[in-house]
């Protein structure tokens, strides 16, 4: 990274960054710290959290009834992330490599639904999948009995995929955009089959985008509760629903705060794993750079060996 010489607008940039930093501190860091503090607190007769030093809230977090929703959340997240990747990668690849001028249009179409509120979109899914909804009704006209979809775990996974798919497509689109076409052509020139070129050349070189997309998709999914609330059944409760319940219905915000801290810990852990994976990638790039290969592009000889 290039270091900025002293006096080269550093003061100006610091001043410009100050309001944003202050807002971040005031509205993000301090509230987050408060959540941490109140996770050790108690509730008064009005349901208000009061500072305390009890571990009871964390004992409540680690009860078996929270474990099932947590494991279910991780499973839903893992499955939905993989589905997002499988669906999103080809779209991003197509948009960059083959759509030419239609590429930005495809991107716009991907982003367009995001202009509509998430809840409205989930409600639309509910109307679509419900027994008297559009899909079962249309199938019934064709003489087909639609299976029960809404109120199942599948409906939640469908909702999660639909809700977060653009977050997978965008970073992959950026990664594929930076991939020189010559590298793929070189792979083909070296008699690599299409799958071999993809797995040995294209995918590894767009892995950062894939990793970024997976993170962008998985992290908010871990905290999602609206999808399960509207599309899920009694056995699709996610950890976000348990937290939401503590804040909105159960009147025990300190337990809710402890659940939030536990969820943040899980997110940090996920992020740490992702960073470890990314570090391996960075190390690889560093080795390549040291060898006088500044671009993360495999040499034809290496590629030939790989193919």
């Amino acid at each position, binding site marked *: 990274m290039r270091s900025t010489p002293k006096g080269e607008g550093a003061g100006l940039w610091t001043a410009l960054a100050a309001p944003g930093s202050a807002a971040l501190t005031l509205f993000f860091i301090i509230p987050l710290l408060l959540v941490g503090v109140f996770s050790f607190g108690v509730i008064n007769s009005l349901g208000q959290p009061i*500072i305390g030093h009890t571990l009871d809230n964390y004992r*409540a977090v680690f009860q078996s009834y929270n474990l099932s929703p947590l494991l279910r959340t991780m499973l839903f997240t893992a499955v939905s992330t993989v589905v997002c990747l499988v669906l999103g990668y080809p779209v991003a690849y197509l948009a960059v490599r083959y759509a030419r001028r239609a590429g930005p249009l495809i991107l716009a179409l991907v982003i367009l639904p995001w202009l509509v509120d998430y809840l409205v979109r989930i*409600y639309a899914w509910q109307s679509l999948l*419900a027994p*008297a909804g559009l899909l079962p009704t249309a199938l019934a006209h064709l003489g087909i009995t639609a299976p029960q979809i809404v*109120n199942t775990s599948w409906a939640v996974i469908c909702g999660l995929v639909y809700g977060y798919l653009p977050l997978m497509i965008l970073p992959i689109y950026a990664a594929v955009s930076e991939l020189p076409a010559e590298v793929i052509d070189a792979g083909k020139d070296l008699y690599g089959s299409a799958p071999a070129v993809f797995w040995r050349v294209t995918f590894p070189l767009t892995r950062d985008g894939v990793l970024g997309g997976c993170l962008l998709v998985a992290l908010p999914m871990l905290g999602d509760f609206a999808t399960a609330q509207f599309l899920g*059944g009694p056995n699709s409760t996610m950890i976000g629903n*348990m937290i939401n319940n503590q804040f*909105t*219905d159960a009147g025990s915000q300190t337990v809710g705060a402890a659940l939030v801290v536990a969820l943040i810990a899980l997110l940090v852990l996920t992020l740490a794993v992702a960073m470890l994976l990314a570090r391996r990638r960075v190390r690889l790039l560093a080795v390549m750079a040291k060898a006088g290969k500044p671009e993360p592009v495999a040499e034809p000889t290496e590629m030939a060996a790989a193919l």
Partner: protein
Amino acid sequence: MAEPFRTDISRRSFLKYSAGTTAAGAFLGIAGCSSGTPSSSGSNVLKPRPDGDITWFSYQGYVSPKIIAAFEKTYKVKVNQAFYTNVEGMVQKVASGISYDLITTNSAYDKQLIANGLLRSFDPASIKNFDQIIPYFAKAPYDDGRLRYTTPYGYGPAGIAYQKGKATVTGSWSDLWNNPGAKGKIYVLDQQDETLGMSLILDHASPNSGQAAQVTAAVNNLLKLKPSLGGISSDIPTIMDTGEAWMTHAWAGSVYQALLKLNGKNDWDFEWPKEGLSMGCDTLSVGTHAKSPGTALLLMQYLLEPENSHTNTLYTGYSNGTQQGEAAYRELTKAYPFLILPDSNLNTAQWRQAPTGTRLTLWNQQWSRFIG
């Protein structure tokens, strides 16, 4: 946790999504603050008189705009409305010391609000239309017993709604458990005080029980019901309209809203289970931090006027515990007489009380066991 008012349940459920954020905001904004209420609030007895513009903290769609417009015109004051989506959020904001004049409170929480000095007392004799309140609500066990802090406004207890021909009923809460043919199409409310309370009543226990054995047994029963459930939801109009539910634990007012939406589609009926009901109602109160408490009390009096009671019941679809309100509700539900709560059920209904302390912990743990 207590029954919220709803004129459009879908919209309410929609809003519920943001309730987490709202509650979290309230949590961050007010946590640790003392109520800071003057203990002498009870000594300064209010009279209904216009003393400035007011803010009414309530549910959205709780009052006919015509009534507000007429009140503003008559008394030359402005009524600003602030909204909440759940009772817990209301309690948190009121407790934080925000200046609300008139507040739609809830019977389950009134004792706590009064005990913490968050509501202003008033002389019931000074309110012209207090005699409009029907005797059952005039008892007011949730107030200090003499209606000095609140007036009832809006109620509709829960029973069981079901589709004839798809579910069989015997007039008992156990009907939810005894309909294997409706497996996957049975719903219970997603509010712990209602659903856990219902299961406790079925076990002949108090819906406010704090006994671990009773609450555990009630949740064990609910867990037996879980495999038959299609969902745990309070969005009654949606689940009835979309065909997701054949049988559901539901508030009469929500069922009325759903039936309007269904317009005769499917053959729905409703039963008031013989084991009894848990009762909660919305109440109107003047906040301790009110800037114009006289106007707030004046609006309370205005809402209790027979004509306004009638108009508002027709507008919301919920009875409001006044004579004219009851009459309007009967008029409204003429096509659905099964939604009228028989006096026998009303008189034996048990008032819900919001859990606190060890009962709160117990209920939380047990409810989490059910929904988790």
